[in-house]
């Protein structure tokens, strides 16, 4: 039976590839693919579409919520077809750069120039060669989420600022019988957060930018990221069996462990309080959670103000009606952004909406992101998809004990030249 099901899936996938997928866009009708398959995002986007339609009766928006993982397959197929959706979810970076090759992604540069300025550095992740092909609606920042109660138990008064402090705190937590750090290594990308952060601490921002553009991590600082990761692993900061732990699914995931007090901290994005809250019965959970930025590294060439992050956004296609960029302006306007922040969906890209962030910790993360000297998009997103995934795999293998700091850095150049 399993053979039949796999065959059916492969056949279906191939057939869809052959026939292309459909989306309807006539004059004034905007098809919208987003990943809000569940509330609160689903109803928020519906209300946004209704709100825009009320103000612009000639524009009808038909929403097609699509499960997050399906975008990976549906978007290439849609952009290959004659009728792509008018507006679709866009994470920027190298994935966006690949999609532009289809010729179906709309260059938004001139239509957004009048209002995109206040979004600041966040919008840069959606540029390709200086042109704006997508616009973010929320932004993400990666940092350490920690349990104040467990830090207290280990007699840690202030969160660590440097790696040296971090290591001391790991020892303190161990001594207090607490698992210091939870990580969801099964999913691979949480491993990459560590390596990415070590890299932007060891490499200057210029080197990071140039290396990613060239898709070659030649500078010795990239190997130092691997050395730093080796040093971290040698301290054994993670839970037992972390290579098999998922990041977000179930109480046994790394998020669940922190939520239930089984580990003291986790390096994750700003979405984590929401993820964690769903995995615990502790009503006071939010008040126990604190946040601190990734520690600095003594002697690292990286700017300590650089933060790792990303965000969610949208791109218009050439099949979209002319109202598409204006709809994006509406999404990034103070009204929608305030709703988005108030619903706890993410950090708003529009600073005017910051006051709607109810949670003081999230507000702290937001303020930190506005002060960042540079927001480096997660490397797997910043690089073209094939290269970024190859890097994530190499990092995950390295964490599992396979490979060297040099081989991880070399993966990017090899993947970029098609060498597997």
């Amino acid at each position, binding site marked *: 039976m399993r053979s039949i099901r796999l065959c059916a899936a492969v056949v279906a996938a191939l057939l869809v590839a052959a026939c292309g997928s459909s989306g309807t866009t006539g004059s004034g009708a905007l098809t919208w693919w987003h990943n809000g398959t569940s509330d609160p995002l689903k109803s928020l986007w519906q209300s946004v579409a209704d709100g825009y339609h009320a103000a612009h009766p000639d524009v009808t928006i038909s929403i097609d919520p699509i499960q997050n993982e399906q975008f990976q397959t549906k978007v290439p197929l849609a952009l290959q077809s004659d009728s792509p959706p008018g507006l679709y979810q866009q994470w920027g970076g190298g994935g966006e750069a690949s999609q532009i090759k289809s010729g179906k992604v709309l260059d938004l540069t001139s239509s957004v120039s009048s209002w995109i300025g206040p979004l600041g550095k966040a919008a840069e992740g959606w540029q390709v060669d200086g042109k704006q092909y997508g616009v973010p609606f929320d932004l993400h920042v990666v940092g350490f989420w920690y349990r104040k109660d467990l830090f207290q138990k280990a007699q840690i008064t202030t969160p660590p600022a440097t790696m040296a402090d971090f290591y001391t705190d790991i020892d303190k937590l161990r001594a207090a019988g607490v698992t210091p750090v939870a990580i969801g290594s099964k999913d691979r990308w949480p491993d990459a957060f560590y390596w990415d952060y070590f890299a932007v601490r060891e490499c200057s921002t210029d080197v990071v930018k140039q290396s990613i553009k060239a898709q070659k991590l030649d500078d010795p600082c990239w190997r130092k990221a691997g050395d730093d990761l080796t040093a971290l692993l040698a301290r054994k900061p993670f839970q037992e069996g972390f290579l098999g732990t998922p990041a977000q699914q179930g109480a046994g995931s790394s998020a669940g462990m922190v939520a239930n007090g089984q580990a003291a901290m986790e390096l994750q994005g700003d979405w984590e309080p929401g993820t964690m809250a769903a995995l615990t019965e502790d009503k006071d959970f939010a008040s126990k959670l604190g946040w601190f930025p990734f520690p600095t590294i003594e002697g690292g060439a990286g700017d300590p103000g650089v933060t790792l992050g990303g965000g969610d956004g949208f791109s218009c296609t050439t099949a979209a009606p002319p109202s598409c960029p204006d709809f994006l302006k509406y999404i990034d306007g103070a009204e929608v952004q305030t709703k988005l922040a108030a619903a706890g969906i993410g950090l708003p890209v529009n600073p005017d909406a910051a006051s709607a962030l109810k949670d003081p910790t999230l507000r702290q993360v937001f303020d930190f992101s506005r002060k960042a000297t540079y927001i480096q998009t997660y490397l797997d997103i910043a690089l073209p998809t094939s290269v970024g995934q190859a890097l994530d795999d190499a990092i995950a293998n390295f964490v*599992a004990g396979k490979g060297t700091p040099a081989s991880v850095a070399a993966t990017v150049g090899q993947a970029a030249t098609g060498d597997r």
Partner: protein
Amino acid sequence: MRRRLELALLLGPALLLFVGFVLVPIIVAAYYSLYDWQGFGALTDFVGLGNYWDVLGGNVFQGAVGHNLVIVVLSLVVQLPVSVAIALLLNRKLRGRAALRLIVFAPYVLSEATTAVIWLLILQPGGFTDQALTFLGLHGVIHQWLADPQVVLFTLFAVITWKYLGFGIILLLAGLQGIPPELLEAAALDGASAGQAVRRVVLPLLGPTIRIWIFLSVIGSLQVFDIVWIMTLGGPANASTTMATYLIDHGFKRYEFGYGSAVAVVLFIICFAFALVYQRFALRRDTEGAMG
């Protein structure tokens, strides 16, 4: 004339579906596999058999083939004898036989995804498995079931066995029903012991069923995907990658559709070659007449 019309009418729809959903996709995949194609724009970057060299020469894919073969061999060596033994047991008249059959067959009814999620919970560190082993005083047996690269493949095999054992047993039970009781009575009258009767009468008559089971098991083991993907994503460090998870990982997660198609074609050829050889040498006796 009328006969032809009947044939066309009856076979037509099935043939159309077969061509549309089986042959065409295979041909399209074979075509894609000759290009370096990320899924965007036209197919312009012709690489000939380059993708195939990369697939076959890659360490991770070779590892994946090895993992599939381990599952094939373990299935034959472990699942088959156990299935036969349990089927023989359940074929006897014993109290609660219907209930026992139901219990044995129940896991097979669960979808692979459900099975994988259930076992993820059972096997997580400090979970039910570990607690049960501790309770039994077998603390030393506890491993990091899904996190240890040395152990993970065997853990997955155990889960696959749990799910598919019932299928083999039901198949074999059906085969056992077809053995006339007179033969066993005759053997007993001739003084054959129970063991002799099983070896000389039952097993030879079960031959066709066992051969079909082997066929299904090998093909299934070569294509195993769902349970592995949900439980480990092929990790850690590719220790549980199979050909199918490798296909999804590279074809879809990395947007390498040309390369992924090459993997799909290789997987298809391996399965097809096995099917042909097995039909020719093992199944021919059983399907004679039916296949013409």
